[in-house]
């Protein structure tokens, strides 16, 4: 019946044809943070293996994480995680069929941005306060 046919079909217009909207940017950021989290798991593995290896290895990884490059990477990684997490919650809300109005969409997008920044700062403030 429905055999495979090779017809030149028109392609749908791609990204650059549309005006960038907030929800569109959020969708892109969700994917980018997901990819960053994917490769960032290497940091977790490095840390765990260092802890399991020796005090020397642990000191090396700790020194890197304490350096300004390490702190920058970890700060970005914290934000990526929290942004992706809140973005996921946004998707859960949409899964229930709610939150699709223009105002609701914009609100959820803004809440994700503000929430991810506030939570990242909160986590880091706590980290520095509890640091011994």
């Amino acid at each position, binding site marked *: 019946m429905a055999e495979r046919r090779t017809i030149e079909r028109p392609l749908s217009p791609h990204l650059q044809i549309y005006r960038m909207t907030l929800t569109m940017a959020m969708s892109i950021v969700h994917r980018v943070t*997901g990819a960053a*989290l994917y490769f960032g*798991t290497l940091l977790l593995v490095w840390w*765990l293996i260092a802890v*399991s290896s020796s005090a020397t290895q*642990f000191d090396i990884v700790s020194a890197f994480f304490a350096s300004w490059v390490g702190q920058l990477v970890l700060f970005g990684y914290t934000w990526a995680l929290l942004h992706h*997490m809140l973005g996921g919650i946004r998707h859960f809300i949409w*899964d229930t069929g709610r939150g699709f109005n223009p105002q609701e969409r914009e609100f959820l997008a803004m809440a994700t941005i503000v929430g991810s920044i506030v939570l990242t700062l909160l986590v880091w403030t*706590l980290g520095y306060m509890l*640091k011994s």
Partner: protein
Amino acid sequence: MKTPLGRVRGLGTAHSGTEHFWLQRLTAVANLPLLIGFLIVIVALVGRSHAAVISTLTNPFVAILILSALISVVMHMRIGMQVIIEDYVHSEGRKILLLMANTFFSLGIGLAAAYALLKINFGL
């Protein structure tokens, strides 16, 4: 004789039905509490000594929390990256190679992390 409806019912164009979507959401739901817990553990460990970190990571609740998070995260990251590859890589050969690499990377991350955590708990 199979009707077109019978051929696609429950399967769709990817021949896997809603399995991918379901696994994506299931692991996302699991990741939420597990990674919040993991973040709390990490925040509590900032600046601690090697001995203190080992003592925390050998706490059964912490170890089981991290192991659970690893399983959920590895599945979630694998199918997430799979979608990215399928969206952007159109050459069939490269796509298949990258999909394989994706599985190897995700499993490798999970196994390496689990190995280290188990070694910390049982092997030191």
